[in-house]
């Protein structure tokens, strides 16, 4: 199987150093640890996470700078009051929010901006479908927790921004200080993350023969 994969990958005979990038094993993500910051509210949409004008780009590089731009800045460029502008939360890598987080567009620019701003996990009451999938595929776990537990977590972060938060995807638990709360994540996504299978491209490529079989059975694939 690996041989076939390599041939497929390397039709142009790339240098081995380039090939390594493609076949590099993915990290097994079972635990995310870091400091947190809370952006409160339900239905935080992708336009708010990354305003559309910053999507005029052909790479995702540099998007981190613009995360939540319009809720963090006034139109004249001066800063609004926002947790992401507060010095005490600088360096946080776990984002905490409300229900239906990431609703709106399918733009991967949204999770990319969050990821590139230094976040490695999002904890919320609930996630919009496409955002959840996009984040998982980046290796950024999105876990849900009960509303009351989230309140507690938010107050703890507010009281001590340096408190270490640890998300354990095996135990489905978030711990901070001397507290532990339950969290949840769809099993498919969880197992993909903990098994280092969160980016499915290699598995998809490996299925090429079976794909060809399905294609042959579908007349419209031949324009009929």
């Amino acid at each position, binding site marked *: 199987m690996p041989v076939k994969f390599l041939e*497929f990958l*390397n*039709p*142009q005979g790339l240098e081995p150093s380039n*090939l390594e*990038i*493609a076949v590099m094993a993915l990290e097994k993500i079972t635990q995310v640890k870091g400091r947190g910051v809370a952006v409160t*509210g339900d*239905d935080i949409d992708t*336009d708010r996470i990354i*305003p*559309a004008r910053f*999507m*005029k*780009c*052909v*790479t995702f590089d540099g998007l981190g700078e613009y995360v939540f731009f*319009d*809720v963090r800045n006034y*139109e004249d460029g001066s800063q609004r009051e926002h947790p992401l502008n507060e010095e005490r939360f600088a360096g946080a890598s776990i984002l905490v929010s409300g*229900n*239906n987080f990431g*609703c*709106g*567009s*399918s*733009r*991967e*620019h949204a*999770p990319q901006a969050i990821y590139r701003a230094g976040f490695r996990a999002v904890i919320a009451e*609930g996630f*919009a*479908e*496409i955002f959840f999938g996009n984040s998982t595929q980046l290796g950024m776990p999105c876990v849900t927790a009960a509303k009351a537990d989230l309140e507690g977590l938010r107050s703890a972060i507010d009281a001590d921004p340096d408190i270490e938060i640890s998300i354990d995807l095996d135990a489905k638990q978030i711990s901070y200080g001397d507290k532990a709360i339950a969290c949840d994540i*769809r*099993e*498919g996504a969880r*197992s*993909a993350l903990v*098994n280092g*299978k*969160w*980016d*499915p*491209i290699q*598995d*998809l*490529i490996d*299925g*090429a023969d*079976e*794909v060809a079989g*399905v*294609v042959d*059975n*579908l*007349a*419209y*694939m031949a324009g*009929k």
Partner: protein
Amino acid sequence: MAKNLFEKVWEAHAVRELPNGQTQLLIGTHLIHEVTSPQAFGMLREKGIPVKYPNRTFATVDHIVPTNEVQEPYSDPLAQAMIEELRKNCAETNVTFFDTNTGKQGIVHIVGPEQGITQPGTTIACGDSHTSTHGAFGAIAFGIGTSQVRDVLATQTMALNKLKVRRINVDGQLAPGVYAKDVILHIIRTLGVNGGTGYAYEYAGEVFDNFSMEERMTVCNMSIEGGARVGYVNPDETTFAYLEGRPYAPKGADWEVAVERWKGFASDPDCSYDDVVNIRAEDIGPTVTWGINPGQGVFIDERIPSVEEGATASERESIAEALEHMQFEGGTPIKGVEVDVAFLGSCTNGRLSDLEEVAKYLQGKKVNPRVKAICVPGSQVVAKIAMEKGLDKIFTEAGFEWRAAGCSMCLAMNPDKLVGDQLSASSSNRNFKGRQGSVTGRTLLMSPLMVAAAAVTGEVADAREVFGILEPAGA
């Protein structure tokens, strides 16, 4: 065993179960645009992976194209760079590109159906959440992220979890002046902006049976605003009649075979669903959103809710946040609120029938001089037919600006933007804060004819009164 359309299409396209438990699903038709594809091509290039089935990907340019200048280079160098990047990517990989000089360019969700690329019983993906539009044809159509665009380019497949299916029946007759847009705004208001999470919506019932393809597309388009990634209508004679003769539709003997095949994908009469919701058409009125998510809507004769009306603490919080942004006072009527901008267009309501319906009533009327009104056909094909029918003249004589095809003021990626806290009556699909290009800008979603009524009167108005649309005799 009786099956619904979702299950049948899923089974016909399922390749295998992946080690992570997801399904590898064949995506027969892949649509791309300039915003969410360049990074995907970049990832493939970086890894030396070719596009596997280039003849099954179709590209167009819509989000960044200016609608008030057609000559390149565009005044915005970033927009120019993006269109050039797409051109280059398509040329290098042999992907068909409906470029601006083809006469076929337009919003991706208008171009696909118009060209006959969107067909029943197929799977469709596009790096755009309104891909659900294509479900109007009985296809399973997903909005995807850029990494999945990469996956589809590389393998023509992606990894997915199966969705549950909720059937939404809308039976009865819609009153005159009530449109497909009102139906979907009402569904979202009823089921909530995240009510559809984990579901595909199957829209059915008398109202959908009687709807044209363009009306079905308007509803399916906004499935995602209700949290449902997929929305569809079962294919029927209306579907086939729309597709016959379109450039990419099967031809000759293949046509008959295809129609028979397509019929077989419709949900079986006795199949089961994970959930069923029934809505009466008579309960739906012209709807206008008053807040900052598409579920915050009221009928034209209702009042804007006040904070106390929220059933839960978080609902009260979101009403308060919306009222603050919209600068509205809870408890006041939506009717009569002054508007600054009227936007007619988008993948929700920028099709020929939308423009025709408005033109029918706009003739002889004038846009209120305080209002900036723009009409943006969804594609070059729509623009051409509309102009052949003289609709552009009706719009310009009334005081609308007539623009070139594109996403325009639906979102802020081209020169069409709100300024400051302007209030916009818009036929588009999202009223999020900042959506139309100004952080403090405000959006009211409504049907195209309601946009026209707002343009003419300068305020949120009941189109039935403004244009003298009467209840049918005996009603």
